[in-house]
Structures are given as C-alpha cells and as structure tokens.
C-alpha cells in the first residue's frame, strides 16, 4: 500500500481486464483511424510546405561584354551574383563567393578569402584552409553566349583553378 493515497481502495477483482478481444479490436480500429488521419495530415503538410515550383534564380547569367570584363584587372566582387570575377592577361575566371559552411558571403583578404560569420578561411585559389568550411570554393564554367556576352553557368563547376580560365578572344 502506498504511503500517501488520494483515492479509494479498488478491489482487484472489481477491475475490467486490461485487454479483451473486444477492446483490443476497438483499440485497433480507433488506432487505425488516428494513425491514418495523422499520416494523411503529415503527408499533405510535407507536400504543402515543399512546393513543386520554387523561385530559383537561373543558373546561367551574364557578367558583361568581353571588352568590359577584360578591362577590369584583378579580382572583383560582383554583388548581384555573389561571385568573384578574376581577370588576368585577357583571361577570365569566375569563383563563387558563398561560403561552403553556412552560406555567408566571404571577404577578400590578403591570404585569400575569409568568412565574417564563422571564420572560415580559404587560400587565394579557394581551397579551405581553416575554420569550419567543409569544402573549397568552386569555379563556375564561363563561356561566350549567343549575344556575345560573357556568360557564367553556375550548374557546371570545377575545382581546377587552371582549367577555370576562359579566354574570350581565343
């Protein structure tokens, strides 16, 4: 008998059995309804919150006319597309500026790149050298579009910093 009680004695023989065939079947029926409604709600919410059509910016974008791009020298940050455009001796390559850790925009520093949010560091080729960044900064495929503009395709990436160069005049 417990030390403190707040209810009356219950005769152990005066109790319904914990489970009978009847109550078991009823429980299964009620349980199936609840699980079914829960699953339907969950599945519909999963679909509802994950739209089929999302506003994803196009992966191909222009960075300007070849003569404008080649007129720049050195590494420039392009705020609209969050990329670094590097121009040298008539060649151009484009590297992402989005930190591979948690998506902040990295800053150009003397040693390469540094992230202001969690302190990831990269060397000047974009290889992750310190901090929490798990992957290096990728280069994007550069090509000349039909309009003559220099285009960048974000869906084609490479880590080879020599192969990333593109020469629009060649």
């Amino acid at each position, binding site marked *: 008998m417990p030390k403190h009680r707040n209810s009356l004695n219950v005769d152990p023989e005066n109790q319904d059995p914990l489970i009978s065939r009847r109550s078991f079947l009823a429980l299964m029926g009620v349980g199936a309804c609840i699980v079914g409604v829960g699953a339907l709600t969950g599945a519909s919410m999963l679909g509802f919150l994950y739209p089929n059509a999302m506003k994803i910016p196009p992966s191909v974008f222009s960075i300007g006319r070849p003569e404008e791009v080649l007129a720049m020298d050195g590494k420039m940050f392009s705020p609209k597309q969050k990329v670094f455009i590097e121009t040298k001796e008539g060649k151009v390559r484009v590297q992402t500026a989005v930190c591979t850790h948690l998506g902040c925009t990295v800053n150009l520093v003397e040693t390469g790149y540094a992230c202001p949010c969690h302190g990831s560091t990269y060397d000047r080729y974009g290889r992750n050298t310190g901090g*929490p960044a798990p992957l290096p900064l990728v280069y994007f495929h550069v090509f000349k579009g039909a309009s003559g503009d220099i285009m960048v395709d974000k869906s084609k990436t490479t880590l080879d910093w020599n192969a990333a160069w593109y020469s629009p005049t060649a």
Partner: protein
Amino acid sequence: MAVFKGTPRESWGEYLVNLPSMFVRSIFRHNYPNNDVDRSEVIFKNFFLHFHPVKCHKHSLDPFYTLGLGAITTSLFLILTFTGVILMFYYIPTEDRAYEIMKDWQDTTPFAMMYRNMHRWSAHMMVLFVFLHMSRVFYTGSYKGTRRFNWVIGVILMFLTLVLSFTGYLLPWDQLAFWAITVGTNIAGYVPNLPGFEYNINRVMLLASTNVGQDALIRFYVLHVAFLPLLTGTLIGVHFWRIRKDGGLSRPPDKIRPDPLRVVQRSDTKESFAPGVKRTYGLMELVRGTCPTVDKGPYNFVFTWPHLLRAELVAFLFTLVLILGLSLIDAPLEEPANPSKPTNPSKAPWYFLGLQEMVAYNAFWGGVAIPLGIVLGLMAIPYLDRNPHGSGYWFHRSRYLAIFLYTLFMTWQALLIVIGTYFRGANWGWVWPWTENFARH
C-alpha cells in the same frame, strides 16, 4: 402551526433595491472575499484565477526559495503577447515594407518604439529568465518524483522560447535578420535529407525556396505570430496544471508531522467558517483514522487570496517596471537586408552566440548534433538522476555531483557566449576585448 408557504414574491421596490447587487452577482459567481468561504470561492469560481489552488503552502510563497523566476517568465510572456499583438497592427511581412515600417516607427507613430523596445527586451529577458528558472528548478531538485515530466515540458518550453526569439528577430528584415535566416536554414540543411527530394527538405520547409526571400519571411512570420505562441501558451497551461496536480511547488517535508488523532494543527486564520454559513458539511474526502481534524486547515497552508496573488502581482509589477525601464533603450536595428554581403563580423543576439561559437568549429556537430544532444540530455535529467533526496532544498548536500555537472554545463555555455560576444572580431577572428570594441548586440 407555521407552515412554509414559499418565499413571498418581491415587490418592484425590493427588486430595484436588490438589482445592483444581483447584477454584480450575475457577473461574479462569488462575493467579495472578506471571509474564508469567499476566499475559496473567488479562486475556484473565477475563470481567470481557477488555475490557482485555493490554498498554497507557506514555503511556496518564500521569495528566497523560488526567487519569483517562473512568475517573472510568465509575466514576460504576457507582456510579449500584448506588445506583439499591438505591433501586428502595423507590421507587414514583405521584403520591401518590413524594414521601412521599422524605420517609420521611429518618428511617425507615437509609442511604436516603446512597444517595439518592450517587445525586443522582453524577449531577451524571457530567454534569460527561462534559463534562471531552469537553474532554480535544478538546484532545488524540483524535478524529482512526480514532477519528472513537468521538467520535460519545461525543456520544450525553453526550446520554444529560443525558436520564438529566433523567428522574432528575423521580422525587421535588416542585415541581422537576413543573415540569421541564411545561416539558420543552412544549419537545417545539415540535417540529413529525406530520400527522393531534390533539395534538402528541412531547408525548403523553412524557406519555401532554395534561397532566402519573401517566401521565407512569410513562413517565419506565421510561425512567430500564430503557430509558436499557440503551442507555447498551451504548454505553459500544461506546465501550470502539472504543478497543481503534482502537489504544488516542491518543498521540504513538514518538520511537524500533522497528527490527525491529536488536534494540534493551527489554521492561519481565526475563523474556520464564515458566520452565517448554515451548511458547513459535505463529503470532501474519506480519510483514514478515527478522528479527522475538523475545523482546521492543513498545516502551514494559507489562502491563495490574497497571499499568492499578491506575490504574483509583485512579480508582474517588477517585470513591467524592468521592461519599461529597458524600453528607454532603443532596440537594435541594423542596415537594411543586403543579400550580397553580411556585416563583418556578423553576430547573432547574445543567447545564440554560444551556438554560433560552436558552429564556428563544425556545422553539423555544433549546429545539429550537440544542440540536439543538449536538449535531449536536459530532458533526460529526471530519468538519469536516481538520487531521491534534495527536493525542495537549495544545493542539497547529497546532490553534489549533479550540482557540479549542471554548473559545469552552464559555465561551458556561458563561456561560449562570453567568447562569442567579447573575443570575436572581424572574420570571427580572435581579438582581445580591450583592444577593439565590437560587441554589437
């Protein structure tokens, strides 16, 4: 022989004389509580008071036992609900309007800055007081015995408080907001994806897209103003209800054991029943023994009206004065959201700087695994701590190991927050606080 013929019908004059008191009684189901019966009825017949017990233990009223931390946290939640609804009359959750409205409030709308400041600082204080309240409950061992699950509910409420704060500071759509969403949803992207989904579903469920924008803002808005407050309010109700059902606040066992065979107990009031009450009997409870104590209240219990209600009022007024004082300081608002570049350094509000410091070592471990482990570990405390002693005592000596481990954990978190606040500068690099000032929030 006098025969009872029913009460005579009252005249119009009598009716009009009785009308005011009848009208008041039609609103309040109890009389003015100037006697013990009405002191009981005011509690259990009033909707707004009925979650209180009619009587509570004197120990629960000791301000140096609870420090009023739970009451202060509740007061903050009420202030936050009120000021939040007030702010909703102006706020529009769109990318191009949200920040503008924050700026407009500064000089076009009377008291708007007061309400915004109150809302922001109450949120900061609520996070602080939730942690203080949790520490009080831990150090007094109040999660033991029947109160185990109420601790679990409390941990869920702590988590909800943090999520409410997070979704709240996204809404002004300044630099802090934009990059907090970016980082927060990228952390969600480190949670493993379900198979068959092209983009990480945890991230898309928050953003409604693959990048931060209008679709994300409306989701966080709905979470902040509807979903999370309702969930939190409901769980606060369950939290209170469990306190009642688990026997009130934890307290040490009474030093003088009440003895039902010898009437030695003293009620705190002189009268046991109000004069004029005719029917003083009714089946309350079946008790063991041959001579139950009649006409005496439970040992050391006092009426909730006025004792507990007065204590709660003091806690609420303290909170209100604190928040009104803090509202003289303007809530932070950074530059408008610039999706191309975060500020350098980009710092979360102080309560997330420990998390930011952990994430700065590893995104998955610091952002997903360790925080999840902390929440689950806190929930598991009542089921891991098998020491039955110490409930109701501050720093009970038998609990030295538990107290040491908890203090170690809290010190570790506090240390991470201090490092994140004062020792991190540009590009999250280590700097000494006396060489450069960069504490932004």
